[in-house]
């Protein structure tokens, strides 16, 4: 059932049951609000979203008032604006206005709304209420004085994570968010989200505390690589370093949320101990940096007649990387390609959004690896399973797996051992060629998540030194061997995959867009 109403002079048709606040979004009109969040219940208590409805005796909260046929709503009328101005003044009576030292500054809804519609100057001359600061446990610090009492955090913990660790203590103007006794947020798995949904700087991340100003951060759409859920995220970067990870809304995957494990998983990208140039090794500890062309030329020369192929890949490498690895293995005469991935004992489900969980499989692209034809090997802690590979005497290719459980003897019998990685490894001691590749944060590409959704990510960081995306390196080798043109972009690499791998057939890189697209066959992770 559709309902047609008028909002700010525009006729809008929306499904029955839609709130005025959501209906206004369809004409691009944001109604300021704090307590409303589309992923939780609406207490209608912030009183900022009050709109004027013709015929209603008083202003109505847009977040809970549902649309009615023929309704005439004004969100920008003098009355609506005057109300917001009045409410915003109330918000500032006790707000410390410590924006210069507040992490939220620059992305703060109180700042934005007051700048847009608030009074030029405050009228309160009274001493301000002081709550001070509290450590809520986990990654969360609470600055009580900045709180606008929207209770989003309380509702997230009780309705979404469903582990009610926060509450409102006391009443009236003494109301304050607090934890129960000393329990705090320690041990919860999704509490980072309360920092995201706090509309002001009351809840801040300890990890991000005073690290960067919001306006200095670049945002790049990406995919979390911490498990096979494939949460949509943004990389927030500054000075070519990731400063923090934030969830990016995608109702088909992660809603508005991401888990704390994923949120913490970025320091390795910033670490700096990267392989920056192609290295040619002599097997006796000698290692020489060379340019790409001679490196690849020498590699192909050595590959000729080197025997059968075995390859090990990381299941967090992109679909494009894995696709071209398979192509290279084929061109070199064919052989087994395996991946290893860590499996947790249990999923950690976000109870209030149960399609989201920290999945058992802790790699970003295990489903992609399966679909592309790689075999799972090793244990559930991503070790072992490489005995026949380690002693293989033909061609050995390693992509992205740092082989942390392997020793320096790995690959010492190989006729040709190529190690493509971002970081050095003891297991690469006998590699003939060590080729620097980019991380997911430095390249474009796609991952296939646990539900078979192919999702794109974009580069937010510059690659160190001469590191290149693996698909580009592998594609160049395949091109030489087949005397064709290699892929010049991740899009071309993916589209080639769509031609060669049935599960991806008919898909196109452009169509995947920022929301992802589901492969055309059912997906189940091998070994599950």
């Amino acid at each position, binding site marked *: 059932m559709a309902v047609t109403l008028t909002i700010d002079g525009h006729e809008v048709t929306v499904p029955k049951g839609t709130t005025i606040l959501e209906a206004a979004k369809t004409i691009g009109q944001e109604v300021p609000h704090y307590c409303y969040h589309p992923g939780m219940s609406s207490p209608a208590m912030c009183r900022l979203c009050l709109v004027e409805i013709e015929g209603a005796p008083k*202003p109505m909260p847009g977040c809970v008032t549902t649309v009615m046929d023929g309704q005439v709503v004004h969100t920008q009328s003098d009355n609506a604006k005057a109300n917001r101005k009045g409410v915003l003044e109330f918000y500032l009576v006790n707000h410390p206005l410590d924006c210069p030292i507040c992490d939220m500054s620059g992305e703060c809804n109180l700042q934005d709304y007051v700048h847009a519609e608030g009074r030029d100057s405050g009228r309160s001359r*009274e001493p301000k209420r002081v709550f001070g600061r509290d450590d809520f446990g986990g990654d969360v610090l609470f600055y009580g004085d900045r709180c606008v*009492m929207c209770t989003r955090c309380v509702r997230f913990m009780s309705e979404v994570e469903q582990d009610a660790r926060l509450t409102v203590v006391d009443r*009236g*103007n003494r109301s304050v968010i607090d934890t129960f006794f000393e329990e705090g947020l320690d041990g919860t798995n999704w509490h980072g989200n309360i920092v995201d949904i706090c509309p002001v700087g009351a809840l801040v991340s300890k990890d991000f505390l005073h690290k960067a100003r919001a306006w200095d951060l670049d945002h790049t759409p990406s995919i979390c690589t911490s498990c096979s859920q494939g949460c949509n995220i943004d990389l927030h970067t500054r000075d070519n370093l990731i400063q923090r990870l934030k969830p990016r809304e995608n109702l088909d995957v992660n809603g508005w949320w991401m888990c704390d494990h994923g949120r913490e998983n970025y320091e390795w990208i910033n670490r700096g101990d990267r392989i920056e140039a192609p290295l040619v090794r002599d097997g006796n500890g000698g290692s020489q940096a060379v340019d790409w062309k001679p490196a690849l030329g020498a590699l192909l020369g050595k590959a000729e007649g080197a025997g059968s192929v075995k390859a090990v890949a990381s299941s967090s490498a992109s679909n494009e990387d894995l696709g071209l690895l398979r192509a290279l293995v084929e061109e070199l005469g064919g052989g087994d390609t395996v991946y290893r991935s860590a499996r947790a004992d249990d999923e950690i489900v976000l109870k209030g959004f149960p399609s989201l969980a920290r999945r058992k499989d802790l790699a970003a692209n295990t489903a992609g690896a399966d679909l592309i034809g790689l075999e799972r090997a090793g244990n559930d802690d991503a070790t072992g399973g490489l005995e026949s590979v380690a002693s293989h005497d033909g061609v050995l290719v390693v992509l992205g797996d740092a082989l942390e459980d392997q020793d320096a003897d790995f690959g010492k019998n190989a006729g040709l051992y190529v190690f493509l990685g971002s970081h050095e490894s003891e297991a690469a001691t006998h590699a003939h060629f060590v080729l620097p590749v980019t991380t997911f944060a430095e390249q474009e590409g796609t991952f296939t998540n646990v539900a078979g959704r192919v999702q794109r990510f974009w580069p937010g960081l510059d690659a160190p030194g001469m590191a290149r995306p693996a698909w580009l390196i592998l594609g160049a080798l395949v091109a030489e061997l087949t005397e064709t043109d290699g892929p010049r972009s991740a899009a071309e690499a993916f589209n080639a995959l769509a031609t060669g791998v049935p599960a991806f057939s008919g898909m196109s890189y452009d169509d995947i867009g920022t929301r992802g697209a589901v492969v055309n066959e059912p997906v189940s992770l091998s070994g599950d």
Partner: protein
Amino acid sequence: MAYPYVSDKEVRILSKHFGDPKQRQIDTYVERGGYKSLEKALAMGPDDIVEVVKASGLRGRGGAGFPTGIKWSFMPKEATKPHYLVCNADESEPGTFKDRELIRWDPHQLIEGCLIGAHAIRAQHVYIYCRGEFFETTQVLARALEDAYAKGYVGENILGSGHTIDVTVHAGAGAYICGEETGLMNSLEGRRGEPRIKPPFPAAVGAFGKPSTINNVETLCAIPHIVQNGGEWYRQYGTEKSPGTKLFCVSGHVNKPGNYELPLGFPLIELIEDVCGGMKDGNALKAVIPGGSSVPLINAEEARACKLDYEGCVEVGTMLGCASVIVMDETADIVKQVRRMVDFYAHESCGQCTPCREGTSWTAQILRRIESGKGTEDDLDTLMEMTQNMVGTTICVLSDSVAAPVQSSIEKFRDEYLALIRRGERVGAA
């Protein structure tokens, strides 16, 4: 003379036995005709009772004055879910002390009213939510309820009628906001005492998510009399639009403060000068708050023109509320009185809605500063405009209740504010 003070102007129906401790005993109550209305009501159909109450024109005595019969008629006709009748005995409005007296002196009258009300709305369970501070009152009621259970007036198969109605007395924890009907339901359910957004209204989604009706103590106490004597009988008292009698709680500078049951429409000035024995010490009348601290105060001139019914109070710019008449004489310091009221509301705001949470305490802060002689004339403009932002912008009307005394006092007694601001002079000493 009996019960602290009585007047021959009174029409004592609900308060007939005030001052007589025997009335609490179930045998006395029954001897004097008690529980006869219940018997009569149980033999009637629920809708017939609603019709009688509609005909009586009885209006809710909790403050809003909504017609009780119409309120009852909003309840679903088919009891597909449990229905609840909730009696609001969380009497906390400053200046109000009628429900406490009704329960203390005549608990069975309330229990009987509750049972009839429950039958009328097809409820099998009544919750009487008593104010947390009403220790004695709650005990009296609980004891009376025990007796009523023992005699078969409450519980299973009441008086062999086949009807089952249980009654639970529940004590609050002491919060003004739990007197707001949806805040009360939250508190009853064990949640924070915070008013709910309406709609949904209680008749659709009330206590425990079930259709519920919430009535004030005094409203329910009137029910047995109306059922016994009929709607027309009730209409012989009061006015066309405000029928019946009403308990007036008079406090302040009068010689005989107390509860007086008078027909609605009674002149305020006669209440003060005749019923209450005139102003204390012969002082001049300065101001009256006729309906409890939530309503605008009126000056002496307006008080002289005020008729005490729902319409009459509106005519002079105030409200009847719960008919809690606070009388102030010339010695009253209006700024201090208003500040004390605002302090109360700031303390009792539940804190959900921003205009109330921040506005009540900010208002109190400004008034305190004015009282201390550090106010400015700009403060008065700020108060007028800022409190206006608290009217109609929140879930319940607690913040409106702050605007009423502040705005009306600044309008009517601006001189007193200015005397403090300009010269540091206080009026009166009370």
